[in-house]
């Protein structure tokens, strides 16, 4: 039996917009097991990104429970929370969000710096990653010298370098053409087979089909699985 990675229990997020209370996420119940590949689907404004952000602890639920690896995130202090996601979560963004001032090697290396990994170890890990993604030749290039697909590849490499248990991907192929999209999705399912849990938000039925489980959201509620 596989372990539960995280579970949401009536998780809710509301914000105040003027005098109105707007519910972005409405009583979400969700269990994610290790090794799953979940696709979140739904129209714009249905709450996909908010849910990803909350799971990724960039944002927090205003109500309800959130347990990650058995630890109650909702009652945690900011410092512990950041320790938690530093350790276990990697992010992949639609706009790649590479650091412009750093070259490929340095971009991939950055999370290790924040984890205080030793220099020699860092070198070995980054070299492995470059090898695995076949981008050794590009290691000295800066983001603006790469195509979108290559940038996203670096973005994924960077998310993986910290050996996270969970990858959160918000429209990872949103800025890519279909060929590049296919490559990235192939990569995701490959990673998933190697044991990484993935949650992605997507508009595309085709991309969603790579996942082992599809969750449809509408107006902040799970409407179907």
């Amino acid at each position, binding site marked *: 039996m596989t372990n539960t990675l995280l579970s949401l229990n009536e998780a809710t997020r509301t914000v105040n917009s003027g005098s109105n209370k707007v519910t972005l996420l409405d009583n979400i119940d969700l269990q994610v097991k290790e090794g799953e590949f979940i696709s979140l689907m739904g129209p714009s404004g249905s709450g996909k990104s908010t849910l990803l952000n909350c799971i990724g602890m960039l944002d927090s639920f205003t109500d309800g429970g959130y347990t990650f690896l058995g630890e109650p995130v909702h009652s945690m202090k900011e410092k512990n929370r950041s320790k938690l996601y530093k350790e276990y979560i990697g992010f992949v963004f639609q706009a790649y969000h590479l*650091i412009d001032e750093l070259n490929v090697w340095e971009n991939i290396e950055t999370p290790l710096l924040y984890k205080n990994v030793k220099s020699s170890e860092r070198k070995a890990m980054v070299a492995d990653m470059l090898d695995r993604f076949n981008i050794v030749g590009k290691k000295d290039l800066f983001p603006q010298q790469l195509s979108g697909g290559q940038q996203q590849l670096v973005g994924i490499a960077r998310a993986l370098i910290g050996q996270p248990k969970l990858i959160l991907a918000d429209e990872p192929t949103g800025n890519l053409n279909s060929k590049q999209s296919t490559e990235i999705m192939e990569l995701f399912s490959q990673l998933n087979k190697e044991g990484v849990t993935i949650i992605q938000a997507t508009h595309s039925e085709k991309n969603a089909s790579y996942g082992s489980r599809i969750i449809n959201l509408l107006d902040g509620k799970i409407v179907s699985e």
Partner: protein
Amino acid sequence: MIKSYIKIAWRNIKGSPLFSSINVLGLTLGLTITTLLFAFVQHENSFNSMFSHKDQIHRVLVETAESYNNKTYATAPAMVAPTSIEEIPEVLDAVRFLKHGFGEAAYISTGSSEFIESSLYYADSSLFKIFDLKLTQGIAKEALTKPNTAIVSKSTANRYFGTDQVIGKIFKVDDRLNIEITGVFDDLPANTTLDANVYVSFATSFFSRQPTWSNSSLETYLLLAEGTNVSALKSKMQTMLDKFVEKDAQWYTLNVQPLNQVHLYSNQIENAYSSRKGSIEQVKSLSWLALLILVIACINYMNLTTARSQKRSREVGVSKTLGASVSNLITRFYAETGLITAISIVFGVLLALLCLPYFNQISGKEIPSSMLWSGTFIVSLIVIWAITTLLAGSYPAIYMSNLSAKKILSGGKIGSFWATRVRKGLVVAQFGASTILIIGVIVIYNQLKYIQEKDLGFNSEQIMAISVNGINEASNVDLLKLELGKLPMVSNAGAAQGYPGKTVSGRMVQNPLEDDGGLAVQTNRIEAKAIELMELNFVAGKNLPEIKAEGDSLVDVVINKKIADYLGYTPEEAIGKPIQMLPSHNSFIVGVVDDFNFASLREPIGAYAFHNYSSERKEYMLVKMSVTDLSQNLMSIENSFKKIAPNVPFDYSFLDKNIEKLYLEEKQTASIGMIFSLLAVFVACLGLFGLAAFTAEQRDKEIGIRKVLGATVTGIVKLLSIDFIKLVAIALIIAFPLAYYIMNNWLQDFAYRITISWHPFVFTAICALGIAMITVSFQAIKAAVSNPIDSLKTE
């Protein structure tokens, strides 16, 4: 990790050259000024700190009671030093300095050439022990012990003889004394009050033969035992005075001043001989100026850095999702600030080195460039670097690191209500400070101009004072007067002891009806012609008689109105009345002149009297010139002078220039302030430029939408500019009363002063608004003419 931060910082600097150069430029200018001012302050504070006994050395001060106007003098009677050593156990040793001619230049003749020596002192041989003076040639034990011997500084030896091998050489002082050189010392450092080029043995001086308790002319330094209680010492000095000086003759009490206060805290102390006098007020005001400019430069940096926050924030957001903690990010921003500050400080020091000669010229100091490389200075620079980094980096680091990652990455606008407020507040502070600086400089400038143009009560223009101290025979001085009178460009000439702007003799006028101790008065022995050429305004009576018969014991006196008032006479009544002032009992008032400013306008006009009693030497020939061709005049006058006194150097000055010298310190402070204020305003404008760029960037989309909806370019420029104009206006409103208050305080130091009018305020307002408008509209126009498509398609 730091390495990676510095790497990012460096690439950021390279990546946006314009912004980086503005940023570095602003900080560099700020740091250049700070470095210079700091060097100045450190130089002033380092005075006299090189002496090994510095904590034990005290200068004797002579303090007079109220009837002598409560003055403090740096010179003491000759008996004080030797008697103190004998009578007071705490006094281990003492040295007396007498400047040649009580501060006048000496005429040196080496046989082959002549020199004017403005720093010749007579000194006791204890100088070697007390001030650790070392001889590079000659024997210190024997030097300065015999009459008519001297030691000279190395550069002086070279100046006189073209070599430093000068032991045994003879030079002549004022054509009277033959002095043998028995030693050579290394030039004294620029940061000591001792400014001598030549020390002649004290035994040579008149005072060693006839030391008194009354004539107070010797700067006296005591070497005290360690841990001496100064108040106990003072009472012992009083006991000593009581023992040797009758109560009636005690016109002063003695006090001491520690050596470390001699340079900066002697503004109120008169008669000090050194040409190097500092002022704690000047040090303080320039320190404040340095700090203010540094703060302006830091604010500038903050504004420019946060101005780019929209672009930089994405990087912050990404770093946060990659696991960077707030402290990681703070370090990262500080690293960047530290790097930029370091670059700026290097440039700043280089620029300061280049500017140092000019700074020395303006400030009248001799700060050596080696000072900027000295260990303590480098340590101070590191401290300045750290402070600047902490200050300038604080806002960007704290502001940027606390941005929410989610907000940044979801493309939301950053910059909260508070962030905007803070940034606006910074601009207000920056412009407010610049405004105060500008108004301050204008007021100082106006006051100095007022002083220079004020009717002083006499005409100082075109009057030259030629020193005739070196001419021994009085008949030759008369001959010179005749000779000068023949020149077509000389309209009048007459000899005098001194002239307005120069201290003459201090005496007391007694009012026979009052028993109040008398009125302190300056007396000037003078010839009638010299009074005439100064165009003093006679309100009653007449001038001194032109010619005085040989053996005539009657003394004629011309007084100013102050004295007549004190004596209780109207000017007319005063004529023919006897006056008790001079050692002669036969003095009568022949004329009364209107009060005139003979000293600094800081003080109210005091009592002044001209007389023809023979108590003083007439040291100057005052010459009124009628034509303005200065070089031609000088040449002819010098020719006449050389005809009479071929061996005496021709030394002269101009009365109006001498009067200007009274305000040298203010003038220096004003010139330094002026230049630095302009730079401060420039730096402030850089900051405004940055903020304008930031706003244009922030409102990019808004501008795009407005343009699509049909807004005109002028409409948008107005929209963007109005906010800044408001900020500058607020800065002006805050700064005006502050500036008024500060400058009004400063003016209180002057007995004659301007009232602050509205002119500088209006002028400053127009300047500040004008400059701000130009700076901002540059950015605003750029934003307004851009294609709206570019700003709207960013999603």
